[in-house]
């Protein structure tokens, strides 16, 4: 939910800075600043809902420090904007192959979701194969050996030696249970 607000806030900032030609090469950087500032502002506002306990002689409350950092954030954001307004900042970089990032991110998120169902081992193996494919690996031996090797390694090293309770997944729990 808070993420949606963040996106809306960023969209509003984006629309707002369109008319300023000077800032145009810095759109991305301005949006980063806006995002950070939005989080600070959100924390500042939410801090007013904190309970105030009745402690004797306490000069500060849970809200003091987040508010303080927000007060610091205001001048700091302005400072960071100045070189952009002056046009002295390095312009935003061009976009690279964004699709690669998008696919990897998507597959990563999907494989994390899949932990619960098909377990850590299978989903990380699938993730490895997809990711290697995206990185244009076409060698079949690699595509099979790396995931299998990883599964064996992570089982013995993490699960057996380090007692990490890697998720088995409902599918396999059902199969072997």
């Amino acid at each position, binding site marked *: 939910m808070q993420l949606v607000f963040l996106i809306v806030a960023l969209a509003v900032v984006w629309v707002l800075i369109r008319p300023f030609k000077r800032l145009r090469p810095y759109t991305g950087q301005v949006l980063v600043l806006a995002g950070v500032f939005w989080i600070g502002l959100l924390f500042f506002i939410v801090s007013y809902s904190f309970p105030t306990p009745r402690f004797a*002689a306490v000069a500060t409350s849970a809200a003091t420090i987040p508010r303080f950092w927000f007060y610091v954030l205001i001048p700091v954001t302005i400072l960071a904007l100045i070189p952009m307004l002056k046009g002295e900042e390095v312009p935003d970089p061009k976009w690279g192959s964004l699709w690669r990032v998008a696919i990897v991110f998507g597959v990563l998120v999907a494989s994390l979701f899949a932990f619960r169902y098909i377990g850590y081992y299978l989903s990380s193996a699938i993730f490895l194969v997809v990711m290697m494919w995206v990185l244009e690996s076409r060698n079949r031996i690699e595509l099979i050996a790396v995931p299998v090797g990883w599964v*064996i390694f992570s*089982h013995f090293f993490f699960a057996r030696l380090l*007692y990490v309770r890697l998720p088995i997944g409902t599918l*396999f*729990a059902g199969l072997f*249970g």
Partner: protein
Amino acid sequence: MKRALVLLLLVSLTVGVFAGGQQEQPAEAAPAAAEGPWVPTRPITIITHVGPGGGMDVATRLFVDIAREFTDATFVVENITGGGTINASRAVLDRPADGYTIFGMAMSNVNSVVANEFDRGTFIDGYHWIAKIQRDPAAVIIRKSDRDAGMDFDGIIEDARRRGGRQVWAVPVLGGNKHFEALMIWQATGVEATATPFESGPLGAAAVLGGAADVQMGNPFNAAGRDLWVAAIASPERMDGFEDSPTFAELGFPELNDEHIWRGFAVKQGTPRAMIEWFQGIVSQVHQHPRWRAFNAENAIMPRAVFDDDFRKIVDSTMEKTEFWLRELGMLD
């Protein structure tokens, strides 16, 4: 053909790994033997909410080490910290009630359920309270140098009165047990002071040693081995190793004499009765063990073996007390 064979081999290997991994997961509920003693066939995990080195962690590790004399069962201690002790509790409740997961918990866990308004139906009633194993008495701690200069419990109270609330008492966290204990002492003696959180017992001791705080509200253990002295202790009689420390009753405050934090074990509701009895048997045996007695004596902790409903009653009174003080402090709606 060859390729297919390799593939088949790999698949079977992978499946083998899954199956292997499966064995260590407590997914299958062990068929509870209706009669006869419970015999563990796999390692039993004791989950605790404190990190390695914390009070319950040390107690649990020593407990299971001693328990090896009485059973062939293997115990594994797992530390799941964070979430205001709830991460650990949740992990226990997420695992099956087959007796292979035990919650090694302390009073702060019950405090947290009340303070954070978690569902008591889940996080309190969801447990069968197997055994309380330790009673760690409340202690008022000051510097040895102050004692040598003539300071004692009455002196502390007098000083607090004189300084009108500026005397600093080190507690781990505001709104926690040690803070409550301090509040009770102030209420009983009719003084005001400032409770300042120093995160942990040892850091609180350091604050008193360095002079940042005047008094530590802690456990006798915090004073052991340091240049600190226990000025008052909540105990029926003076404790070994702390013979020069008077009890609250001696000082004229019998109502404070039972203040302590407890530690104990619980399992998820629905755990086979035979397992509970088996584990209580081990608690009784460890309770009597000289090593357990010696460890507790050194740290001025009283070993206990309080089971089932009697333990649950202690839990209920903890909840009551926590709720009362949190309301007093305005920390609970």
